[in-house]
């Protein structure tokens, strides 16, 4: 029972505000350190790829960014659902706090994908399932932010945004499984939980460290943004 009380205690923006500051204060420097380690592994430890040469080094930013773009949307939709179910004010703010960082990583995934596609596929862009569904994800983030910004009343904006976020979450499994469901230029998953990774251990290490860095960065960014939202809405 005590845990339940604690959860609702932190559901109050006023009590969450200092905690968010503390979390951001830890995650931001940790993200910077991990990014430095990840880049070092990516550029100086991981070997040159036998087929792609040095072009493959885009992987250390592309794959972690693509993972974050999908994961952040799911977390955003989760907070949206919590907000709809329990009518807690902080949930809507959490969803709002995650959206711009999610959009940022979606854009980075698309941008680095285009620059990786040119030397490996011979084209910056194709309208195939993986690329198109990721582009739709970017528009869903923009739509979510635009919709919330266009509604003056914050509680109504939270509810409208939450519905859009929840409807749009169906796109995430479509992105993830698109490489299996349809014929696509994009390669399948290089990392899965059920089989050994199809790449050198140091390449995988660099990618995972960068993914962890992006995770911590996203947490820090969301925490700082939620603090802004709490202060701005208090006025």
């Amino acid at each position, binding site marked *: 029972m005590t845990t339940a009380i604690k959860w609702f205690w932190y559901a109050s923006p006023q009590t969450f505000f200092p905690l968010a500051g503390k979390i951001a204060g830890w995650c931001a420097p940790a993200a910077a350190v991990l990014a430095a380690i990840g880049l070092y592994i990516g*550029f100086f430890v991981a070997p*040159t790829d036998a087929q792609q*040469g*040095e*072009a493959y*080094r*885009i992987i250390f*930013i*592309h794959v972690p*960014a693509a993972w974050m773009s999908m994961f952040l949307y799911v977390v955003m939709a989760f907070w949206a659902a919590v907000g709809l179910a329990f009518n807690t004010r902080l949930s809507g703010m959490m969803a709002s706090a995650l959206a*711009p*960082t999610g959009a*940022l990583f979606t*854009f*980075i995934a698309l*941008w*680095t994908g285009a*620059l*990786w596609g*040119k*030397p490996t596929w011979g084209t910056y862009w194709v309208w195939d399932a993986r690329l198109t569904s990721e582009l739709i994800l970017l528009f869903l983030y923009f739509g979510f932010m635009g919709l919330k910004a266009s509604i003056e009343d914050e509680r109504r904006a939270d509810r409208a945004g939450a519905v859009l976020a929840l409807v749009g979450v169906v796109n995430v499994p479509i992105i993830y499984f698109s490489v299996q469901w349809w014929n696509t230029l994009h390669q399948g998953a290089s990392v899965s939980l059920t089989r050994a990774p199809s790449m050198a251990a140091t390449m995988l290490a660099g990618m995972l460290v960068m993914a962890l860095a992006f995770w911590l*960065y996203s947490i820090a*960014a969301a925490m*700082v*943004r939620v*603090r*802004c939202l709490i*202060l*701005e809405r*208090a*006025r």
Partner: protein
Amino acid sequence: MKDFFAAGGEFLAMGGYAFFVWGSYAVSAALIALEVVLLARRHKKALRKGS
């Protein structure tokens, strides 16, 4: 020293893929830096007005 610069040049050349590799990293780094700056500014402003 000459070797050092030669090695540096080779590193920057990325085996002929410099435009694609550095284009990816530069734009990503710039956008993340932009988010950090914008967030820091917004946070500072919110704290000042909040008190």
